[in-house]
Structure formats: C-alpha cells, structure tokens
C-alpha cells in the first residue's frame, strides 16, 4: 500500500479543487447528480463519482494510486458540516 502525503496545502487544495470542478464537472453533473460525491485528482483533473466519500475516493485511488484527492458533494461546496445551520450557506 503506497503511503501518500499531501503535496498541497489545504488552501491550495481547495482552490485547485474548485477550479477543476467549475471548469470540468459542474455543467455535466448539476443538477442531475446533486448529492453524489466526486473525488478529483488535483494533479490530473481525473475524477470519479460515488454515493459516499469512501466509494468515490477509492475508485479514483484504484486508478491513480498517487492521487491527491479533493472530495466535494455535487451541488454543494462542502462535504461535512459542523454546528447547526443547514441553511447558512456561505454567500
């Protein structure tokens, strides 16, 4: 099992993940597949989708063992939530 380490800062990962999602994924996934999780390789832009984080990330990792993975929920900017406030999406 290869040992991967993050090669991006969290902020870089978020920025690059957003760029790839906006450029390549949003138009083809929203809104039909809202709620699915996509895992994106930040290096290549390759991606996989799945019903949950583990499934999507494992599918991508199976193809790209060294992937630098960003996960996001289709139709949302985040995959998890701390604190009440489902409706308090950032503007």
């Amino acid at each position, binding site marked *: *099992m290869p*040992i*991967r*380490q*993050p090669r*991006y800062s*969290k*902020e870089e*990962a*978020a920025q690059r*993940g957003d760029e790839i999602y906006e450029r390549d994924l949003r138009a083809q996934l929203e809104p039909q597949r809202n709620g699915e999780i996509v*895992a994106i390789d*930040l290096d290549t832009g390759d991606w996989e989708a799945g019903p*949950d*984080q*583990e*499934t999507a*990330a494992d599918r991508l990792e199976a193809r790209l063992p060294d992937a*630098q*993975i*960003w*996960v*996001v929920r289709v139709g949302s*900017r*985040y*995959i*998890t*939530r*701390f*604190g*009440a*406030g489902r409706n*308090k*999406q*950032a503007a």
Partner: protein
Amino acid sequence: MITGTVNAHREAVLRLRVRDADGQEHERNAVVDTGFDGWLSLPPDFIAALGLRWHRFGRAILADGSESAFNIFKGVVLWDRYSLPMYLADGNPINVRVFDGLLRWTGQERPLPIQETDGDILLGMSFLYGARLLIDVLDGGSVDSSDIS
C-alpha cells in the same frame, strides 16, 4: 451501554479508547456534537500519535456559515461491534475501541472518514447513527448511549 458525563462546559462527553500500533490504549474524552454530520474528528496531535494515514482533502461549512478546508485520514470500520480498525501509515490496522454498546454495526466493513480539526475530539451523527442517547443535562449528569434495538 456506554456512558459518560456532562462536563463543566455543558457538553455531553463519552469516553473513547484508542489503541495505537504498539497496542497501547489511549483513553480520551469525545464530545457528542449533534451539529456535526460526519463521523469522528480528531486533533492533529492525536492523529500524529496514532499514525493515521492521510487520504484526501475536503471542505466543511462551520456554524457561522464560513468554510474551511481540512485533511481527511483513512479509516475503515470493520465491525465486531466494539472495535474500529483504522490504518497506520505503514498500512497496518489499529483498533479504535469504544466502550461497549455505542456502535451497532454488525460484521460489515464500513468506511470511517477521520477528519482533522483543532480542538476537541468530536463524535458526529454519522458515528452515532443507530444509537439512543439519554442525557441528564446537569453538571456531572450522566450520558448513556445504547443501541436502538
């Protein structure tokens, strides 16, 4: 049934027992966070001490509506009811155990995303899913968790 207490900050706390690579058990307080929709959130120093394997990045939305990117570490729940094997950096499993009764999965392998965030150990609603919580909301009040059967 697993038990805990309401602490001075009026948080419901359950005790987690975590076993590291050397087989040593670490006992920690974990705060029940019903506003956290994930599984388990651990602070960086504890993740490092356990040797968890980094897996990916993601983003959370916080209570004030702000967003924050975070690291996610790999863990897999291999259920014998009370143990959660997670994987060390070298690929070997370790067990994260909780006091009896909290978790109720039966035999199947389930993913457990471990999120890295500063602060307390948080148990989220995905972790608690299927449990019944009974909390006496008083200083030192009891927190009891049992399976919904």
